[in-house]
């Protein structure tokens, strides 16, 4: 009976304040979408780090026909130069910094390139001898990249030494920045959501002060008086959180795993299932924020 009564009160409260309730839903929806997006970016960064960090290497690219670097003035790298570089890599002075290394010939580079861009027209416009051969070095400690770079970049036959890890770090720091920005927007939006929930509950308590006054006089418990208001805020916020979760899931499903994954073939994207981990967090966050802010508002504006 009391449960039915409380449900009825919630229903009438939601109807009476429909426009305010809708704005609470929308604001929590937007703010939690940003929270979730920040979370997804962090998950994406971790995923990529895990996938790439043991694969990334320092690459020593050798001169080919098209090279313009100073060290390539004498044309493509010769067999002799290549053997010389290999000897250096095997010498104790260098060996102490690296785990192992492989040689990637122009033919192998072309095969990898074709795999990577299999459904892109760029494959047809690139030929084997346009791609450089390279030594792929696995570092013991990737931080020691500078030593390898200094040792090899001035050697004859070397076009350039590149640290893939640095490229990745740049991408990661960019993604991290985006995630921090999303979080910043989220904080502002959450602040708006809390203010809006507070105002909504206050209006709701005011518009029903007659009922609550009578409830108090006939001895209704604090729970029966306050619960409809609190649940009103919580329900609106949870609806917003569910909408945010659905939006994020759709983004992961159709954009990351649909469109982007066909464009960036060897990038490991987070799956839409992983987004489902974020959903409960968002719902709990929405419900918690709404619950606490309603409770504090009622303590001030609803005498019990």
């Amino acid at each position, binding site marked *: *009976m*009391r449960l039915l*009564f409380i449900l009825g009160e919630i229903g009438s409260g939601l109807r009476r304040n429909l426009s305010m309730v809708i704005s609470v839903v929308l604001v929590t929806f937007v703010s939690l979408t940003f929270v979730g997006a920040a979370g997804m970016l962090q998950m994406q960064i971790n995923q990529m780090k895990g996938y790439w960090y043991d694969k990334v290497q320092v690459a020593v690219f050798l001169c080919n026909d098209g090279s313009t670097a100073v060290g390539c003035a004498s044309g493509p790298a010769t067999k002799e130069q290549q053997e010389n570089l290999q000897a250096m890599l095997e010498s104790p002075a260098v060996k102490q910094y690296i785990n192992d290394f492989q040689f990637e010939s122009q033919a192998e580079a072309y095969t990898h390139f074709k795999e990577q861009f299999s459904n892109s027209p760029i494959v047809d416009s690139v030929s084997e001898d346009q791609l450089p051969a390279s030594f792929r070095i696995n570092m013991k400690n990737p931080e020691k990249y500078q030593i390898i770079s200094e040792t090899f970049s001035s050697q004859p036959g070397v076009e350039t030494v590149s640290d893939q890890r640095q490229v990745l770090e740049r991408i990661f720091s960019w993604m991290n920045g985006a995630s921090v920005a999303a979080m910043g927007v989220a904080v502002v939006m959450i602040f708006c959501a809390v203010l809006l929930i507070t105002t909504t509950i206050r209006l709701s308590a005011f518009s029903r002060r*007659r*009922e609550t*006054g*009578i*409830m*108090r*006089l*006939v*001895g*209704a*418990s*604090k729970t*029966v*008086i306050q619960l409809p208001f609190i649940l009103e805020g919580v329900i609106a916020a949870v609806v917003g959180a569910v909408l945010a979760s659905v939006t994020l899931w759709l983004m992961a499903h159709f954009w990351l795993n649909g469109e982007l994954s066909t464009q960036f073939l060897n990038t490991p994207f987070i799956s839409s299932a992983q987004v489902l981990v974020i959903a409960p967090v968002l719902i709990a966050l929405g419900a918690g924020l709404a619950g606490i802010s309603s409770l504090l508002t009622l303590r001030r504006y609803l005498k*019990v």
Partner: protein
Amino acid sequence: MIRFENVTKVYEQNARPALDSVSLEINRGEFTFLVGASGSGKSTFLRLILKEDKASSGSVYVAGQNVANISSWRVPKLRRGIGVVFQDFRLLPQKNVFANVAFAMQVIGKSRSIIRETVPEVLKTVGLEGKERRMPHELSGGEQQRVAIARAVVNRPGILLADEPTGNLDPITSMGIMGVLDKINQNGTTVVMATHDDDIVNEMRRRVVELKNGKVIRDEAKALYTSMIPVVGESRRLRDASGEELNRAQGAQL
């Protein structure tokens, strides 16, 4: 049933107290008028019984319990034992008569079947049979006040507090309301009614407690609105011969 011991209530520092060391006992089953000019402290007296306000000093006992010692989560239980009606009825305009009365039972978790059984009974007691489906705006003032009384007593409280219940009603309608309150009192409910309607008080001939500037200046059984006895000094109490002392002794055991 209700006992005030040296109760003083000060709302604002520097202002005179709304109640000034009031000591008073109201027994179970009694009908008491609280009279006095506006601002004499009648509503304050009633609010202290409900623990809507806290006494600045002194103690208020309801059914033998010092209300100051009732924790906030048990205040609802105290209020379930007390019905209240006001001058302005305070009905819910969008609910019909039945729903207004049923509301008081719903919010304390009474079952649907008990509500269906009890509400018509109570509406009959207050003389509103057959008007269950009316909306408040379709009722006269007197009928609205009857609905409010029905709501106040539907949970069978031991005490009924009425704060100027006839203040908005014409004399004839007021007498009708008094009939209802009297009937409720006959059924054993202790009634305390604040009023400054002298006709009613004179007609009913019940105990009269008169307040002036927060002090009790008269406490008389079977009395009139204005005292027949010259007021000497402070409060004065006349006892009737019908065993008031005995009632008091029984009340103290409750």
